[in-house]
């Protein structure tokens, strides 16, 4: 038996997505910029996806730029916007993805002032701290919607209200783990720029999108032809975009059903796993698909490989190195002690996850931990 519980890392590409992409690869393979019919057909497909995505996140099609994925979208949003303003203060959180955090660190080295908002033990930022951190000099605030390691969800509506009220800063949201899992409504949430990725919701890798609200100017990071209004030059990845579109279509349609199912499974899994002595859940049960649990007497990587040998795939928060222990900055930020950081495992679900898989994983987890416990006690 196999249980793939690493959907936060990437997801299986669904059959209907592969079929649609295959059709583009083999039949509608024109360059979207070509003058002829085949080019126009490909361009039309991309436009269709723009409309679909726009409808899903409640924006207009020309507010969407296709990219190579989450990392590029985050970079384009942050770096592209900072090229247009002279303001030198930035705000983000301590629990962002490296493709945001490292960009901010880069700007800090360039002389920018960066405020890293602290989070509480559930991974939520302090709105008070946000409020008094904002100044006239604040150019941009970047906040992750759903945390990829512990699943915490930030209150975007409250955050955007505070930003708008106390500054003229632009609000960027990394919604890579949110799209297709929770409601992403750029108007309601007051988002100015939003990062999206395809491969977290059963689409292909190497495709993503950035929403940029009309009126907000960003500059390109790449220089090339005139595609996508020169903001993101380069021949559009038409098959990828079509696959992304199909994945979004299904995800939007099934959002409520999948959400309900995953929440039920999530809670079932957590309740059962927490029966293991000393285990402890990290972060909040906010997102329907991300679960983080520490087994304080274990080493995460050892547990990961043991589970893997039984066909169960998960992630850890640290590498099993005897030197230079490097722990997850997220687990650090929510204040976990050494043992809980070292023994942390992330289980992430998808709409394809079954109860049988979870029961199998729970059983193997219980057995493996008992076995490993024996070995460790033997010393």
């Amino acid at each position, binding site marked *: 038996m196999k249980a793939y519980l690493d959907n936060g890392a990437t997801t299986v590409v669904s059959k209907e997505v592969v079929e649609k992409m295959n059709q583009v690869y083999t039949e509608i393979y024109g360059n979207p910029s070509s003058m002829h019919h085949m080019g126009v057909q490909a361009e039309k497909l991309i436009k269709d996806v723009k409309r679909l995505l726009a409808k899903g996140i409640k924006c207009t099609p020309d507010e969407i730029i296709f990219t190579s994925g989450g990392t590029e979208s985050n970079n384009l949003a942050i770096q592209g916007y900072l090229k247009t303003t002279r303001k030198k203060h930035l705000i983000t959180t301590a629990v962002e993805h490296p493709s945001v955090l490292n960009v901010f660190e880069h700007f800090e080295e360039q002389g920018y002032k960066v405020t890293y908002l602290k989070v509480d033990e559930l991974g939520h930022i302090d709105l008070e701290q946000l409020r008094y951190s904002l100044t006239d000099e604040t150019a941009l605030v970047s906040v992750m919607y759903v945390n990829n390691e512990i699943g915490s969800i930030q209150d975007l509506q409250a955050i955007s209200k505070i930003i708008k009220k106390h500054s003229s800063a632009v609000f960027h949201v990394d919604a890579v783990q949110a799209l297709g899992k929770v409601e992403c409504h750029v108007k309601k949430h007051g988002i100015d720029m939003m990062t999206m990725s395809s491969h977290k919701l059963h689409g292909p890798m190497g495709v993503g999108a950035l929403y940029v609200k009309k009126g907000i100017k960003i500059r390109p990071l790449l220089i090339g032809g005139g595609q996508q209004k020169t903001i993101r030059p380069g021949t559009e990845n038409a098959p990828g975009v079509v696959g992304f579109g199909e994945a979004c279509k299904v995800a939007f349609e099934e959002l409520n059903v999948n959400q309900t199912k995953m929440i039920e499974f999530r809670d079932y899994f957590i309740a059962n796993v927490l029966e293991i002595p000393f285990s402890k859940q990290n972060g909040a049960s906010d997102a329907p698909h991300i679960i983080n649990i520490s087994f304080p007497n274990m080493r995460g990587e*050892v547990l990961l*490989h043991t589970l893997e040998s039984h066909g169960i795939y998960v992630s850890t928060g640290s590498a099993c*190195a*005897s030197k230079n222990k490097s722990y997850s900055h997220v687990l650090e930020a929510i204040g976990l002690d050494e043992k809980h950081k070292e023994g942390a495992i992330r289980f992430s679900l998808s709409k394809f996850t079954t109860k049988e898989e979870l029961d199998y994983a729970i059983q193997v987890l219980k057995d493996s931990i008992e076995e490993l416990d024996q*070995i460790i006690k033997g*010393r």
Partner: protein
Amino acid sequence: MDTIVVRYGEIALKGKNRDTFENALIRDIRERLSHIEDVKLKRFHGRMYVDHNDYDFEEVADILTHTFGIVSISPVAKCELTVEAMFETAKEQVEELLEEMPSFTFKVESRRSNKGFHLKSPEISKRVGGFINQTFKDELSVDVHNPDIVINIEVREQVYIYTKRLAGLGGMPYRTAGKGMLLLSGGIDSPVAGYLMAKRGVQLEAVHFHSYPFTSDRAQEKVIDLARKLTRYIGEIKVHSVNLLEIQKAINEHCPSSEMTILSRRFMMAIAERIAFRRKYKCLITGENIAQVASQTMEGLTVTNSRVKLPVFRPLIAYDKVDIIKVAKEIDTFETSILPFEDCCTVFLPDRVVIKPQVKDIEESESLLEVEDLIYRAVKEREVIVLRHDD
């Protein structure tokens, strides 16, 4: 066709065995150059001449300078059988050298194998030397005892002139000094140890130990990557991958935790020896280095050594770490070695290790284990992978 002259120094000194070594070197070079079209090898008076298409020079030279047993190579310039042509060609060569260094001392060495040519060797040297000395009065001076540059002139069916030297690795031709079983880990030392032995002509196979699933697949991949780096020099290598987990679990259960490392190492030696016996390999090779870590004390080495009958060669025993790293960088294993994946899991690493173990005590601990059975199963369940340079 262009020509490269190959010098192999030390082999040329070997008395009656010279043929064996030369043949091994020729076989090795042939094998390594087999993918390049129109390559011809000739042996002549203790050197070798490699004819190749001119556009293949970089690749052929790179292969030759990474073949054990070759001391240096020189690209050859050819000209007609006249003294004037020799002057002109020697002059061109000197001009090229002067682009790299402002001045140097030189001498001319000639060999006349084509006895039809009217001048004898000393006369050729004298004339060409005189001409060059005259032409480059400001930059060059003659030094017959210790010159910076030797202008070699060989009078054959044509005249061969060569001055530039590209250093080779030296050492002895591969597979001329017996077979050794290398204990290969993902660390910095053992690939270097294997390389140094191979460079002296020892044919290598490797044994690698892991503790899957307690260690990552990537740790194993890393060792495979390291072994693959060695194939640049030795063409191919067989790697035996042995899971040590059951053994470590048994030690963990029955023996003092401070002896974990030393007992594991004894098992590794015993398993490597077992595989060596089966494969008719005659020694073990390790990257051990005196005083580097707690298990590599004099006492520690004695205890691991006493587990096996085969000789154990430790070419790095007295190297400083910086010197090992230097070689690791030269053979391009360093960057791979420092990747974070560990092949021995930290779960079993004790907080305290015995620094001065005694054979008697360790053997006593070992007697608590089903040693023979554990070794038998570990050897039986090993995986074998063959890596080739051209794959």
